[in-house]
């Protein structure tokens, strides 16, 4: 599940600040698209692979994460090789492999909390003009990470309940109760968040939110 991608640890990558890692990833994202030399791209992919390994993630987790990506890349490779030519396909393959591995290295070694804090700083300028609210964005992000496994579990419960009634898997019949349950859960989750005094007091540089009771 995607929330378990972060692997607690104390490797050099773990210790690096989230902002720095994202900076590098972002720059690499642009840089790799400007480059087209297979050798350079190959080296980048190798470096990225080493970084992933340096995170000391359990091998089973890595394999589970990389397998679907590998399949996708293989198909892309075949498609590009057919439509254009093999060298172009090699460039595409190495470029995407490098990027995906780099992103994985970041994900493996960055706590969601640090990631969120980084967003807050990133969106601070937007917040100042009242477009975005960093507090809410970071809350939204962590809620997604928290609730994907929950949604999946509920999905399985519903499928099981329906199978027990002799129903064959039917996407419409599965999704209606899943969404209804999710909408209902949202009320409880919102209450639980409010009960813990959300939102935090407004910061000096804060967003444009209107507080329930200013002062």
């Amino acid at each position, binding site marked *: 599940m995607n929330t378990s991608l972060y692997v607690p640890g104390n490797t050099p990558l773990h210790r690096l600040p989230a902002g720095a890692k994202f900076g590098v990833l972002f720059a690499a994202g642009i840089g790799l698209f400007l480059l087209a030399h297979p050798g350079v791209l190959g080296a980048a992919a190798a470096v990225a692979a080493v970084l992933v390994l340096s995170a000391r993630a359990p091998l089973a987790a890595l394999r589970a994460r990389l397998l679907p990506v590998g399949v996708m890349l293989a198909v892309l490779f075949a498609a590009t090789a057919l439509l254009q030519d093999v060298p172009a396909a090699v460039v595409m393959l190495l470029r995407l492999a490098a990027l995906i591995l780099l992103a994985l290295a970041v994900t493996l070694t960055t706590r969601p909390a640090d990631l969120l804090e980084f967003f807050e700083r990133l969106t601070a300028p937007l917040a100042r003009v009242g477009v975005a609210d960093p507090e809410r964005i970071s809350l939204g992000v962590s809620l997604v990470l928290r609730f994907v496994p929950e949604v999946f579990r509920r999905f399985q419960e519903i499928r*099981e309940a329906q199978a027990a*009634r002799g129903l064959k898997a039917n996407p419409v019949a599965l999704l209606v109760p899943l969404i209804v*349950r999710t909408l209902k859960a949202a009320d409880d989750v919102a209450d639980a968040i409010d009960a813990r005094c959300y939102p935090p007091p407004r910061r000096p540089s804060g967003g444009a939110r209107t507080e329930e009771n200013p002062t």
Partner: protein
Amino acid sequence: MTAPAGPAPGSAAEERPGAAEPPAPVIELQGVGVGYDGRTVLSGLDLRLAERRIGVIGQNGSGKSTLARLLNGLVVPDEGRVLVDGRDTRTEGRRVRSEVGFVFQNPDNQIVFPIVAEDMAFGLKNLGLPKKEIPGRVAGALESFGIGHLAERHSHLLSGGEKQLVALASVMVMRPRTVVFDEPTTLLDLRNRNRIRDAVDAMAPAAVVVTHDLELVSGYDRVLVVHDGGIAFDGAPGEAVAWYREHCS
């Protein structure tokens, strides 16, 4: 660790109303083992269930729900096999499920359509029942639980107790010979719990009831305590509950 074989399966005489019930199907577990992601939950389980009222108790995570799900093929064993009247749940899952119904803790999961009667009819359509017979069967099932007046109501707007009764009716309408319950009363108050208890006590099919509510199983024919990957105790309700209280709290 050890799984002392309890006294022989209960033999409490039955004096239940509607005694002309069909015999409960015989459910046999033979050398059953189940695990998730390589972690063993149940192992080496040999059981023969044929009593009309069987309770299952045990700690959170002990494997009660897993055991319940084995009985109608919602979970199939990694090792060994489960037979319902001789049918293997692995190969004849759908057939087994039409004989062994299942009522879950959270009725919301079971509801597919917003209107009660519509939802109950949906299950019957899936069984391939002729259209004409459906409304009668639905009305009959609702009546038998005293909730005929709920037929046209919105399922999701019912109270917890009503919802659980509807879930039970929507399983009973399929005329199973055994019904497995996984904690059917946890979310309910005293009165609703008693309604469900009475409904279970009075119904014709046999029942296997997983519960944390130790009073619920007090009149049952046999109670199993699940613990440490196996059945740690198997016997009469009073002794089973005493064993559980002593070893698991």
